[in-house]
């Protein structure tokens, strides 16, 4: 079980889902906060929901308020970065670029990517945490 957890974790790094920031989180975890990483990830996912909803809403309004979209995305990106969500971050940056040039289609399309990566990572991390918990 432990090996499985470790394997999964390494895979996440290798596949580019996570970056060194995640390592920082792991470093912070200690006996006083044995579930710190999981806690933070949970916190992120709970909080990011509202940001995603906010972007969706803003994307629906016309004319598109790119500035606002960029602002919300910036927040979302910041959050993602702090947990080391590499792929999510990449998509966020892409989204922001589309915003800068006012490309509506691009924004909408890219936003789907963002959501996908966001969900995919969530699944993987949940799986990982579960394995890690069982391994303990």
């Amino acid at each position, binding site marked *: 079980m432990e090996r499985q957890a470790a394997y999964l974790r390494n895979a996440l790094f290798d596949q580019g889902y996570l970056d060194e920031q995640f390592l920082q989180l792991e470093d*912070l975890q200690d006996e006083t906060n044995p579930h710190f990483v999981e*806690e933070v990830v949970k916190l992120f996912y*709970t*909080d990011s929901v509202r940001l995603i909803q906010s972007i969706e809403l803003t994307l629906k309004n016309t004319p598109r308020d790119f500035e606002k979209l960029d602002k919300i995305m*910036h927040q979302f990106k*910041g959050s993602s970065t*702090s947990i080391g969500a590499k792929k999510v971050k990449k998509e966020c940056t892409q989204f922001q670029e589309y915003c800068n040039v006012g490309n509506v289609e691009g924004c909408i399309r890219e936003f789907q990517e963002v959501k996908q990566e966001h969900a995919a990572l969530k699944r993987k991390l949940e799986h990982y945490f579960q394995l890690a918990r069982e391994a303990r």
Partner: protein
Amino acid sequence: MSVTTSSASWKSGDAVSDQFPAGLRVLVVDDDPTCLRILEKMLRNCRYEVRLNNRSYRRTRGKKLLFGIRNLDRVYFVDLVNESKFTTCGRAEVALKLLRDNKDGFDVVISDVHMPDMDGFKLLERVGLEMDLPVIMMSADDSKSVVMKGVTHGACDYLIKPVRMEALKNIWQHVVRKKKNEWKEKDAEQSGSVEEGDRQQKPTDDADYSSSANEGNWRNSRKRKEEEDDGDDKDDSSTLKKPRVVWSVELHQQFVTAVNQLGIDKAVPKKILELMNVPGLTRENVASHLQKYRLYLRRLSGQPQNGLGNSFLGPQDSGFGSISSLNGLDLQAYASSGQIPAQSLASIQAAALGRVTNKSGIVDQRNIFSFDNPNMRFLDGQQHHSNGKQVNLLHGIPTNMDSKQLAALHQSGQPFGNTLMNVHSQSGQSNSLLTQMVQPQSRTQMLNEVGGNPVLKFPSSVGQPGLSQPIPGSGFSRYGMDNNVRPLTYTSLSQPTSVVEFSRSQGMELSGNSIPLTSNSGITSYTSKGTTLQEEVNSEIKGSRGFLPNFDAFNELSQNRTDTWDLQNVGSTFETPQHSNVQSRLDVAPSVLVQPAFASDHRNGYIRTSSVNKAAFSAATSLGNGTNFGQQLTPSHADSSLRIKTERLPDMGFQNSLFPDQLGQDDLMSTLLKQQQDGLAPVENEFGFDEYQLDNLPV
């Protein structure tokens, strides 16, 4: 340990106990709950006591708290002291209220830039204006403009998210620095050597960097030490605890009116005080406020010319790179503050700027800083238009400053700096970059590195891209702060050159925060020694802005204090009202860069200081720095610095040559060095100093 203890102990500038950072009271303002949680954990790990102020905490206890408050616009306040009280703060305004209600309840504030209810910069200004606390900005946004904005608004430092542990570890330096500045300021005031308003702002400004949101009218970088209760730690009877004076908008308006009436050049605290006719206001209050105001003005006007000064802003972060010019400054200072380098530079610049006349040499260095760290608060001073009086200490900031400052400096006709100045214009930009970059990173790193010389990596390339020297460190981008720290040591050297280069490569630098560090450090790579430089630089910077405090504090803490003093001295030179500093700085700049690494003498900053001193001396001689030094930085060694300087002179010759080598930036450096000091800085850029340093470097 309780905060008060730390501040108190800090003030005396002596014995900053190792435990100082522990128990530091930090207030974190951020609307992102994930980030807050991570920061909280990091801060706790730093052994800062964390106190979560939040109602829900009582109910939920711990993690729940965060989850419960993950709402938008939620501002979490983490008071690092004891984990018992909680107060909910939903908005930045709440944060302000919290701060106001607990006047001395916090030591430092870390705030996010983008928040829903209030712009982070506004909060920064308010805090600086009202509470004179060091404020550190943070954001995922690392664009130069934003970082520069942070610098100009008086942020002590600028962290790029995601924030790393190393970055947080060193935030205490800002507190120490500020206190030191205040301490010095008080000291200066008492000694009466301080020229009204001309006093180096540094003492009070240790923490000035960020805390003062100078926006209102002047850069608060100088936190009014007088107003700081802590500043009274000095057992000086004359430094009675003065109740902090809050310069409200109206009060400031009255002040400005009075100043305008008298004429900015003729405005002396005494007369201003009389004109204002505000009961309870003392001459000292006015004096320190005037100082800040002048810096602010300088910054505003100096920007176009002095790009240099502004660029220094970075001292904090990148202090490394820019500080190189400070070379003489203690690299240690840099190391410790990591940021200091940038700051130092800034201070140096500031000092240089103030000097205008002499600064040219210094300016270059500052530019380096300024580029890197827009945050460099030092840049403020840059605007000094040749006013000897006004401490042009780099109030840092100014993105524009680089070129402008250079121009300004150039005009001042500084003997030294001419070369530098030109260089700076270009580099100014780069410097800022570096500064910026360096700052965030350098901070943590420098401190860490102090002992180690990791920095070697960055070759003088302070300038990074443009610099002839490759900046190994630059690659570090923010995360790499640690790495950057090292370069700090070097940075001093490369600074001059880097400055120039930076401007070219500006774009490059800022992006990487880390880079600045590297560049800066690169020069001085001698981290251990470098720190000294930094310190020196810092000290210089302090003078200008108060940034230097970091160095001072740091120096004291980490290095042989004596050495650091050198830096401080150097810094002081800069800070000292204008001339002394300027000159010293200028000269120093080249040597400073080189010097940091030299720390060889055990005395980390010692050697450097020498060079710096030397330069300073040469420059200062005319100015009569002696006096100034005492006033300025004086981190604690103000006096010693002066003395040291003299001593150093002989060394300087040594170092000068050394530095050029280090810098590696052959082209620029040589030119700069040559011009600056005919004999001071051997232009040879190769890292000649390596040889020299190797021997000495404590590495």
